[in-house]
């Protein structure tokens, strides 16, 4: 088992013909991902990377049976593309694009929640179930099928954790980069729940960052629900206090959001915390069953 995606997942690519999409889709196919088609408005009937292209998700899904979609379209068009995928019954949607206006994401989130679609991202590295399916831009070579579930807000920090869990010999069940935007499609809790319920996942690595209160909420959830060992690192202990305008941010966060607050909450929930990104592998060796 794994979470979200596996070797049976049929993947379509929205914005397939773009340069980044082409580069990463080619690698995903070489990795063994079952990519079935691309959706690029106005390019119906063409092929790219030997894949058929359709104008709409509706058509691509009907003709190829796609169940998941990865989105590379430019930021101004992402709201349309994500909602299109969701409205047409795509279960797992990954949006790689960065720089989507926040107002667009508020609309997107409200719309897709009604359909029960699972959105990962935007502004994220995507998902990989090693040896089976890659929907994202991560370097495949560092991954290894195994037992650690990894979830992170940051792309490159996910890679660090993956690398260390591979070197430590555990490998990964599934790795998910949920993205660092203000309004992400999924958060830590969604992934923690799936990892807890997944038989193959034996330990979880969660990598957070300063700002917001998602890590604190995750700590609460871990205390209540997660019985598997969790290793956690929070980036930004040394980050300077940013310049700010007005008081609303402070009022909303209610004093939460510093790395120390997050560490304290996680430690209270029994999480094995590490203070440097390079210490994840060693911590895993200690807690992994």
């Amino acid at each position, binding site marked *: 088992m794994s979470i979200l995606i596996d070797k049976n997942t049929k993947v379509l690519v929205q914005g397939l013909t773009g340069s980044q999409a082409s580069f990463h889709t080619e690698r995903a196919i070489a990795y063994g991902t079952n990519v079935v088609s691309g959706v690029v408005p106005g390019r119906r009937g063409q092929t790219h990377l030997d894949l058929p292209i359709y104008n709409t998700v509706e058509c691509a899904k009907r003709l190829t049976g796609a169940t998941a979609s990865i989105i590379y379209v430019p930021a101004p068009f992402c709201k349309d593309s994500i909602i299109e995928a969701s409205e047409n019954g795509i279960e797992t949607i990954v949006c790689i694009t960065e720089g989507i206006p926040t107002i667009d994401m508020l609309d997107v989130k409200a719309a897709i929640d009604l359909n029960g679609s699972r959105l990962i991202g935007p502004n994220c590295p995507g998902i990989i179930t090693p040896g089976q399916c890659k929907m994202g831009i991560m370097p495949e070579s560092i991954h290894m099928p195994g037992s650690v579930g990894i979830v992170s807000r*940051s792309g490159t920090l996910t890679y660090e954790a993956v690398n260390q869990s591979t070197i430590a010999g555990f490998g990964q069940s599934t790795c998910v980069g949920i993205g660092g935007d203000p309004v992400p499609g999924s958060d830590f809790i969604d992934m923690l729940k799936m990892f807890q319920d997944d038989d193959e996942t034996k330990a979880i690595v969660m990598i957070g960052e300063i700002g917001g209160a998602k890590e604190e909420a995750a700590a609460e959830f871990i205390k209540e629900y997660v019985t598997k060992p969790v290793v956690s690192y929070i980036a930004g202990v040394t980050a300077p206090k940013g310049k700010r305008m*007005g008081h609303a941010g402070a*009022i909303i966060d209610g004093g939460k959001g510093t790395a120390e607050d997050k560490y304290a909450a996680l430690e209270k929930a029994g999480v094995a915390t590490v203070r440097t990104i390079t210490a994840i592998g060693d911590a895993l060796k200690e807690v992994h069953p």
Partner: protein
Amino acid sequence: MNLHEYQAKNLYRKYDIPTTKGKLLTHPSQLDDILRTIGKDKWVIKAQVHAGGRGKAGGVVLVDSKYEANEEVRRLLGSRLITHQTNSEGQPINSIFVEEPCDIVDEIYLAFAVDRTTQRIIIITSSEGGMEIEEVAEKTPEKILRNPINPIVGIMPAQCRQICDDLGLDKTLSAQMIDLMQKMYKMFVENDLSLIEVNPLVATKQGYLMCLDGKVQVDNSALYRQPKINEIRDESQEDERELKAEKLDLNYISLDGNIACMVNGAGLAMATMDLIKTHGGEPANFLDVGGSVNEKRVIQAFEIILSDKKVNGILVNIFGGIVRCDVIASGIISAAEKMNLNIPIVVRLEGTNAAEGLELIRNSDVSVYEEANLDKAAQKIIELTEQINEGAN
């Protein structure tokens, strides 16, 4: 991107949101005309800077003579205002907003902001408006009201009525408040804002609501579709190097240390800073080169890093995903050749095309230290810069 108070008030007026009348000046010679146009015998002199806490810092003053107005304008204009929300250098005062004071009966706090927890725009209100709002939020959180807006239907009259009841407003003020909140939500959405904060929103002796202040923030990701707002951006309020970096699509924040970092990804950039500090060094900056970096961008990143004269060593830490390590390596080589670099550089390349990148560096004439282990890379750059420091002493 932040707006000045006077720009926020212009936006209010566009949406027919009640606010005080005022005039902007950028030179003391404009003052006489402005005071005459406004009339009255009392005025408020307000420094236009991108920071809160202006009142306490002396950036907002009530004056009751032309002489005093002139004194204050001359004191403020061209100086820098340091508030608890700025850094130690403060923000430059290049313009001043002069307005008529109003007779205040009551002060309300009103803000619209994006709440990450509910993933909604929320209306934050409090009957305890005024300067101490953060203290109110901390000590008496029950006096802060939060009402999320469902984006599918937008702001609803019923939730506005609820807010007015909870604030204890009378019938005439409630009617104005409901209207004001609906206009403000429209303004928020249509202009891609990330914050509107009115502190205080006042009830006047004459029975009217009036926005006395305006802190408005625009979502940078949406500036491409807000050309009019982009035009009024005041770059003098922003850090010069940070601004230059932003124009190059680089995410840069300058810090006080001596070891520069060049990293891909904001998370890894923060983790790299943390690591330098853990090993006893001081980072000179945060720099995320982003996902779409090319060779030219790497050279530009080096230029920005090196424009900070405190820098005497560079740690490059790239974990390639969407970024290709060979591209970064070519950039480092070109930058080193072009800029004749004479400070130590430690390079750690992992991930996509890392082997190709290291190959390029090894085959070049550029002298950089490569180190695959991130801990060791951080220790190495600290050791090398310490040698320089000792040499200098």
